[in-house]
């Protein structure tokens, strides 16, 4: 009952005209960002963070806008998957398997509509899951002492690479880079300066918002310059929508199954949306068996991964909001945003900032309805937007990012840092070093260090205190599993995902 009350209060926050407007803006921008190949949800949120700062939005408005962007990007990813056979973002990869064949058969509009409905069901169920699960996890808060937090951060780092991650070593290198950057600034446990070289601007460390914008948005621009992609994507054709009620009912069981699986893989740290969509797709194939025409344009093959990845995206908000441990790259970016707004995510968030959290959750529900409305009747508009040449889009993106960064602290040094991070991001991406662990290192490193020190201070220097409670032991074993699983299950899962993808590419070559 208490939860319901909070949720109603949340709606009071989310339904103010101002917040509705920002949710709508976020939903539109998010769908667009998701639809553009290359600009994934993490980049999308990263690019728009400075916008939120430069507009001087309140924490609630910023968060509502950015979570709508996040939700929108998950919707948008499917558009180019279906129409062009290019996933707009990684989680949308599985959607190409049946989405593109459907489009080839002249059923693009139906595929888009079905996937929008499946996305809606996925997001809706996952948001309900978030509403139920988050307060339970948050109540767990008081059991977390310094030792447990330290174990929790170890878990976050252990699962960084993700179960499907390819190169654990590169992930570790990236995380170490982040940890190193995080040591710059005042060490609050001793009050000493570290690596600040008497430069006042460095006393508070390197702002991770700057790092995020540089690493993601600026490097994106550099990649664009390199590729000289002047033209937009080939104009995609869209047929007239002819969707019957029975078609929708047909995919509802699929969507429900996909949602549940997606949500679970979203909540688990390290799994994320890509795994969510993959698991949903393969399970659906099992359930339906030989009756389906998977890979040849089965609507259920579109519904399952879309329900799965949208559910996983919302599921990933659970550990981020309640424990301060992001389950995916995008939630890591959202976490950075929260910290920059002086809101400390974690167990206390639900008691300290109840109004804000529930406002955001309510906004997710409202945003979902908006996205459904946007994505069925207005789909033609997004298809048109897809053909905007990036040569107009990218400079605007960079300008917004630069203005936003400057407006945070009115310091030109921040802009130099942004460019520096952009160059570093470019080099790292060339070397195929993932960027998200860098951000996570910067975000979680100081917390992890602090908690280790606290744990040792509390135990008067006894290291066994780190493993003394049942809770910390449980988290440690999970962390160990997170490290070991990619070596055991990873290759199998990866092979299957690639196989599924390869099977699709055969007819494509035949064209």
């Amino acid at each position, binding site marked *: 009952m208490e939860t319901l009350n909070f949720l109603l209060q949340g709606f009071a926050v989310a339904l103010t005209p101002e917040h509705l407007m920002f949710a709508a803006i976020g939903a539109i921008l998010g769908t667009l960002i998701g639809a553009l190949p290359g600009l994934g949800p993490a980049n999308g949120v990263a690019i728009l963070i400075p916008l939120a700062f430069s507009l*001087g939005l309140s*924490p609630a408005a910023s968060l509502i806008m950015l979570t709508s962007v996040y939700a929108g990007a998950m919707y948008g990813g499917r558009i180019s998957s279906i129409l062009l056979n290019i996933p707009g973002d990684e989680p949308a990869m599985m959607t190409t398997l049946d989405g593109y064949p459907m489009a080839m058969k002249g059923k693009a509009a139906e595929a888009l509509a079905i996937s929008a409905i499946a996305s809606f069901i996925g997001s809706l169920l996952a948001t309900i899951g978030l509403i139920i699960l988050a307060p339970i996890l948050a109540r767990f*808060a*008081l*059991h*977390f*002492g*310094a030792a447990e937090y330290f174990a929790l951060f170890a878990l976050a780092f252990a699962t960084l690479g993700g179960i499907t991650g390819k190169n654990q070593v590169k992930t570790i290198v990236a995380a170490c880079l982040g940890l190193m950057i995080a040591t710059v600034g*005042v060490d*609050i*446990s*001793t*009050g000493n300066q570290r690596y600040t070289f*008497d430069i*006042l*601007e460095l*006393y*508070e460390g390197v702002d991770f918002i700057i790092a995020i914008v540089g690493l993601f948005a600026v490097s994106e621009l550099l990649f664009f310059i390199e590729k000289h992609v002047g033209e937009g994507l080939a104009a995609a054709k869209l047929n007239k929508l002819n969707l019957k009620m029975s078609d929708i009912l047909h995919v509802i069981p699929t969507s429900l199954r996909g949602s549940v699986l997606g949500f679970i893989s979203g909540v688990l740290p390290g799994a994320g949306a890509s795994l969510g969509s993959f698991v949903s797709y393969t399970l659906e194939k099992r359930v339906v068996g030989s009756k389906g025409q998977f890979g040849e344009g089965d609507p259920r093959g579109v519904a399952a991964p879309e329900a799965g990845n949208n559910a996983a995206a919302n599921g990933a908000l659970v550990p981020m909001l309640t424990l301060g441990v992001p389950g995916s790259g995008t939630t890591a970016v959202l976490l950075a945003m929260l910290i*920059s*707004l*002086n809101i*400390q995510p*974690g*167990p*206390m968030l639900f*008691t*300290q900032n109840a109004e804000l959290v529930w406002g955001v959750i309510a906004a997710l529900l409202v945003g979902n309805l908006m996205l459904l409305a946007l994505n069925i009747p207005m789909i033609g508009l997004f298809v048109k937007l897809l053909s905007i040449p990036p040569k107009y889009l990218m400079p605007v993106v960079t300008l917004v990012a630069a203005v936003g960064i400057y407006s*945070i*602290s*009115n*310091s030109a040094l921040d802009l130099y840092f942004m460019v520096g991070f952009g160059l570093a991001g470019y080099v790292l991406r060339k070397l195929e070093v993932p960027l998200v662990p860098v951000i996570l290192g910067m975000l979680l490193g100081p*917390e992890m260090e*602090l908690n280790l*020190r*606290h744990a040792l*201070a*509390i135990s*008067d220097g006894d290291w066994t205190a780190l493993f003394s409670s049942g809770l910390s032991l449980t988290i440690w074993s999970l962390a160990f599993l997170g490290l070991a699983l990619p070596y055991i299950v990873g290759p199998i899962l990866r092979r299957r995902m690639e196989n599924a993808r390869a099977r699709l590419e055969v007819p494509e070559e035949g064209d």
Partner: protein
Amino acid sequence: MKQRPLRKLMLATSLVFATSSAMAFEPERTAECIAPANPGGGWDFTCRSVGKVLTDLGYIEGNVQTVNMPGAGGGVAFAHTLSKREGDSALMVAASTATTTRLAQGQFRGMTAEQVKWAAALGADYGVIAVAQDSPYKTLNELMDAIKADPLSVKFGGGSALGGWDHLKVLIAAKAAGVTELPKIKYLAYNGGAEAITQVVGGHIQGFTGDVSEVLGFVESGDLRVLAVLAEERLPGELGGMPTAVEQGIDAVAPNWRGFYLPAGIPDDAYEWWTQTYDKLYASNEWKQVMQQNGLMPFHKSGAEFEAFVQQQVKDIRELSIEIGLIK
């Protein structure tokens, strides 16, 4: 035509004489307030709320623009005020006890409190020392006795860095209570008061040190017991239930004031105007309302009195910091 420049000059000089005799100082139409932190923090609030009341009451005709200049816990803004804004009488910079603490400990390298003009404090949040509701310590004296017996038995948590104001509050109270081994008192620095409070309520550490505004929600919910407020007398209204340290025989007072400094080199009459304006603002109903809504408690000093207070606070903090070995 040749006469024109001369006439202009005469006009100008007469104007100067007229203004200087009639009115001592004419405030600029607009003013700027530097908040040395990101939006959303205490300094940002100080700038925005004072700026609003200043314009609402008509002391500043135009508007008061808040500029966020985070960095080095206020050091970037302090350096900016020293090097670029000397003599700018339309600028005020938000400050608090955190500013004096850093100045006292030499954290703004090469800069001292004498290099700016301290204008006024317009309210304060008082220090508290609290324990969990189920803690064996019922009074501040019991807690201090436990520390005297074994300094490691009570670990404190607070929202500031080691050596920061939250840490110093414990030391001020312990020193006043006659604890001799100050450097041995354990203080854990958290990223904010709330985080430290959770650890106290969860039983992971024993003592919380912070501000009154940070504990209110937890006192209401019955999770936290305030052993002492570090104010001269009991706080007004509902907060009066919390005992002070002074009434328990421990002479410790630790206000975290909120106020402003002005750049050096501004004319005396400008300084005069600002301090008088702050006095009037503090007395206004509009400001009283802001204070009440935001949990600010009465605390007001301005002009020379505030200068002296700041210098004394810097001196006290420096001595304490040397005593615990934080600085040499």
